[in-house]
């Protein structure tokens, strides 16, 4: 179960730049809105949410610090990666450097220019002409205002004087009021109030237009409620929501009591508006002057902050893009290393559909192809190695300096080498027996431009100290560009073939000789018998004739026997194949010999579960008779106190699927130089031997597709080994014999 954190990390790592950018923008906007909403504005309840602001400030500072830390950490990491020479670090550094350079230089220049411009622009707001015009406008407004004030005051004073004077002549308050109204109209005042000593309004007059124009004269100011201390006139300004007024208050005696005349003059709307504008302009200008430096600082700070943001952003984007570029490149490099190590299952996850993604896809495809090709090559190699290993012909490959590069099992067996590893890397002539070296030299030298192969039959003493006839073929090895790279040596063990050929030749010769010899033998025998018959009874020559004819007949018989043996050797046996219990056959023979030769200890040991074997009983029987006979003959001489033994061991060899019979004696053994020849016709160590027994035995074994060879027995004597394959098809041609020797 993948944890949420890991799932989020996986999602974030897969999220594209658009997703991240969107998130960033949304968070920034939200943050800005949140910050703005926290700002306590001009609402009625001035609530300073200290906790919220504190938290917000801390979050903001934390975010800033985290950003600086992350960017700084990545930059430091980048430098360290570069120093360590990590793959892709240089490209990343260059990209980030390019981004930073591209943004830093113009940004810094822009910042300096903008801040200078800003500073000068703001300073320009307060230039002498600007200040002079503001001051001038204000002065004009003041002068005009003062003039109006003076006029209103003067008018009010005049009205006060006139009303005071008129009170002497006018009797009733109504007449006074009328006079006051006429005075009001004359001097152009909007309203006149007569205030008593206690601030009570005794008389009120105002312009009828006041009601029409929808404004009202302001009430009596509170500080005028007590007029008892009012000694001097005063004029003041008052403003309502709709209008501006100049009011004057002048002490007066009204109806014999101290009072005050409060006049109200409404400033014309146009003038009021103009005055308001002047006031506003002045205030704005003064505020601007006041905040000149803070404003400048804030604007420049804003500029610096955004520049910093741009630079940090550039670094971040540069790192991001560099990572996006070098990440796949690093993975590709790692991939090539893995593929070089033979790991064809390495797969790079494709990111994006751009050229990098295409490159990654190509790499993955290449890896898949390589894997397929490698598998096929491996299959072919195994196939080839299997063929080479099972090939009966020895194959060796050499380089141009005759150093062995490879040898198959057959060639190893020929030269009696355990493993290929023991000879690979050695020179060919270190391996070859002395007797073969001239032949190989000749073969190799004979290879020239015109001939690419050369062959020669050689004979040498190989495994089991037997002579081997080998057909050596040497050829040149070429590479796909047809350049010579070395040699290939084929070693075809034709010993069996040679033996068979010799055997066949001997058979043919034997057949002819037997035939030629036997022909005259009958007449000679008949003549000798006739002489004996006719002259045997003669007293003078009778005894001589009888002796002579007997001798002639005896020798003719002997020659006939010899000729018969030759015929037997020459004649291909008529096979009578049948399933045979070989151990039984052998043990019966052993029993016969044991009875005839009580002085020799005969032993027959066989495995209990030997399979039956199809063979020609008579041929095999003759074979074992020959071998046992030879063993008995070898033990016929005196051996002192040594007991004479003949032992037969029979067991099944699973590896070669054949029955192996070992017939050994503890006689004098066979000399080394004879071992290679004893299976050839007319080779015998016996005085009266024909030399054909072992040749016939070898022929019988070969006819059964088996092997027959001889070794020294331990501690003394000779051991004949017969290998008869089980299940061999004796009707087909002889199969290729494996490199003889022990199975």
């Amino acid at each position, binding site marked *: 179960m993948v944890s949420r954190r890991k799932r989020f990390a996986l999602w974030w790592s897969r999220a594209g730049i658009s997703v991240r950018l969107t998130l960033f923008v949304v968070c920034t906007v939200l943050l800005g809105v949140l910050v703005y909403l926290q700002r306590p504005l001009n609402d009625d309840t001035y609530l*300073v949410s200290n906790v919220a602001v504190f938290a917000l400030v801390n979050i903001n500072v934390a975010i800033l610090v985290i950003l600086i830390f992350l960017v700084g950490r990545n930059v430091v990491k980048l430098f360290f990666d570069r120093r360590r020479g990590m793959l892709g670090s240089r490209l990343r550094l260059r990209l980030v450097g390019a981004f930073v350079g591209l943004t830093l230089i113009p940004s810094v220049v822009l910042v300096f220019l903008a801040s200078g411009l800003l500073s000068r622009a703001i300073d320009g707001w307060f230039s002498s002409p600007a200040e002079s015009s503001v001051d001038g406008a204000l002065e004009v407004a003041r002068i005009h205002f003062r003039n109006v004030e003076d006029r209103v005051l003067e008018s009010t004073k005049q009205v006060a004087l006139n009303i005071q004077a008129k009170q002497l002549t006018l009797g009733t308050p109504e007449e006074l009021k009328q006079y006051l109204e006429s005075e009001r109209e004359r001097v152009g005042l909007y309203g006149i109030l007569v205030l008593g000593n206690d601030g009570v309004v005794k008389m009120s007059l105002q312009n009828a237009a006041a009601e029409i124009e929808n404004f009202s004269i302001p009430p009596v100011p509170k500080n005028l409620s007590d007029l008892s201390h009012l000694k001097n006139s005063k004029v003041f300004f008052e403003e309502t929501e709709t209008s501006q007024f100049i009011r004057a208050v002048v002490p007066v005696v009204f109806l014999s009591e101290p009072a005050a005349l409060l006049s109200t003059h409404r400033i014309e709307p146009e003038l009021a508006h103009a005055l308001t504008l002047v006031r506003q302009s002045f205030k*704005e200008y003064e505020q601007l002057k006041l905040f000149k430096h803070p404003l400048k600082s804030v604007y420049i700070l804003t500029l610096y902050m955004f520049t910093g943001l741009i630079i940090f952003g550039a670094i971040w984007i540069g790192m991001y893009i560099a990572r996006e570029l070098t990440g796949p490149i690093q993975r590709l490099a790692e991939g090539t290393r893995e593929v070089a190590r033979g790991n064809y299952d390495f797969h790079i996850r494709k990111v994006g559909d751009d050229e990098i993604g295409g490159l990654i896809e190509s790499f993955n495809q290449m890896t898949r192809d390589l894997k397929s090709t490698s598998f096929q090559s491996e299959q072919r190699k195994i196939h080839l190695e299997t063929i080479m290993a099972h090939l009966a012909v020895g194959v060796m490959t050499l380089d141009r300096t005759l150093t062995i590069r490879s040898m198959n099992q057959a060639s190893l067996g020929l030269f009696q080498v355990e493993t290929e590893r023991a000879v690979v890397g050695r020179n060919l002539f270190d391996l070859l027996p002395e007797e073969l070296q001239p032949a190989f030299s000749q073969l190799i030298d004979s290879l020239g431009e015109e001939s690419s192969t050369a062959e020669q039959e050689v004979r040498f003493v190989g495994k089991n100290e037997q002579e081997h006839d080998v057909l050596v073929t040497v050829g040149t090895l070429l590479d796909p560009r047809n350049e010579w790279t070395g040699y290939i040596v084929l070693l075809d063990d034709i010993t069996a073939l040679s033996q068979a050929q010799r055997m066949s030749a001997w058979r043919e010769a034997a057949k002819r000789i037997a035939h030629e010899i036997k022909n005259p033998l009958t007449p000679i025998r008949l003549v000798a018998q006739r002489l004996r018959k006719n002259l045997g009874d003669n007293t003078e020559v009778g005894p001589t004739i009888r002796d002579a004819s007997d001798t002639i007949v005896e020798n003719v018989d002997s020659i006939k026997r010899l000729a018969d043996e030759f015929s037997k050797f020459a004649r291909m046996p008529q096979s009578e194949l049948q399933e045979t219990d070989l151990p039984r056959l052998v043990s019966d023979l052993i029993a016969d010999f044991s009875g005839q030769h009580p002085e020799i200890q005969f032993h027959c040991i066989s495995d209990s579960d030997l399979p039956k074997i199809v063979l020609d009983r008579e041929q095999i029987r003759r074979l074992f008779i020959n071998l046992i006979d030879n063993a008995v003959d070898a033990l016929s001489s005196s051996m002192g106190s040594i007991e004479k033994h003949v032992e037969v061991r029979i067991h099944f060899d699973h590896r070669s699927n054949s029955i192996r019979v070992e017939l050994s004696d503890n006689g004098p053994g066979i000399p080394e130089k004879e071992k290679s020849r004893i299976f050839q016709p007319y080779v015998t160590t016996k005085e009266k031997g024909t030399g054909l027994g072992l040749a016939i035995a070898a022929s019988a074994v070969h006819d059964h597709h088996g092997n027959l060879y001889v070794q020294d027995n331990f501690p003394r004597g000779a051991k004949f080994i017969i290998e008869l394959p089980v299940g061999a098809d004796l009707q087909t041609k002889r199969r290729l014999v494996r490199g003889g020797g022990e199975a």
Partner: protein
Amino acid sequence: MLVLLHAFFISLALAQGAPVVHWVDESKESVVVRGEVETDLVETCVNSGLRVEYRFLLRLCRHHSNWFDSCESVQKQLHHVAYDPVTRSFQLSTDRLRDDQPQTRLTFEKLSSALTALVRIPDLPLLFLSGNFPAGSDANAEQKERFLRNHYIDVRTIATCQGEYSETLTQVSYLLTLGLVDLGGKDSGWEDVPLSSLE
């Protein structure tokens, strides 16, 4: 000058002392509330075309010995003073919120007079702060005494310098520094004044 000005914006609260409250007269039905403000810096503010707003926040609270104190709703009174460059006078306007009285305006030729009026509520009826206050001639003296004994006034004053650029600067500074610098108003905080201790 600039340093002082910046100091003003950031430490206005430091200049504000605790408000003082005392009875208007022996009837003990109205109080006079007087706050404090630094004259020189306010003068600079006003002369620079800015308007000084002095806000009074008042509430009447009852003390409970075994429970949390209970308070009435907060009442507010706003005072503004600004300089008129044309008339060369200081305009003071006062407005008690949530009552039926209109805004009053006064004009002063001297700033000191204007500032004195700015930081002062000359007559604040306790009935305005709490409808339960036993006021008038029908009021039981004992009830009144008990009321005065159990209640106290919470007073808070907030002074701000208002103007187009000051607000702009305040908001910009607040946003740009992500809330670190707040040039908004500074206040005195709530000050508890037991009614029984008033003079």
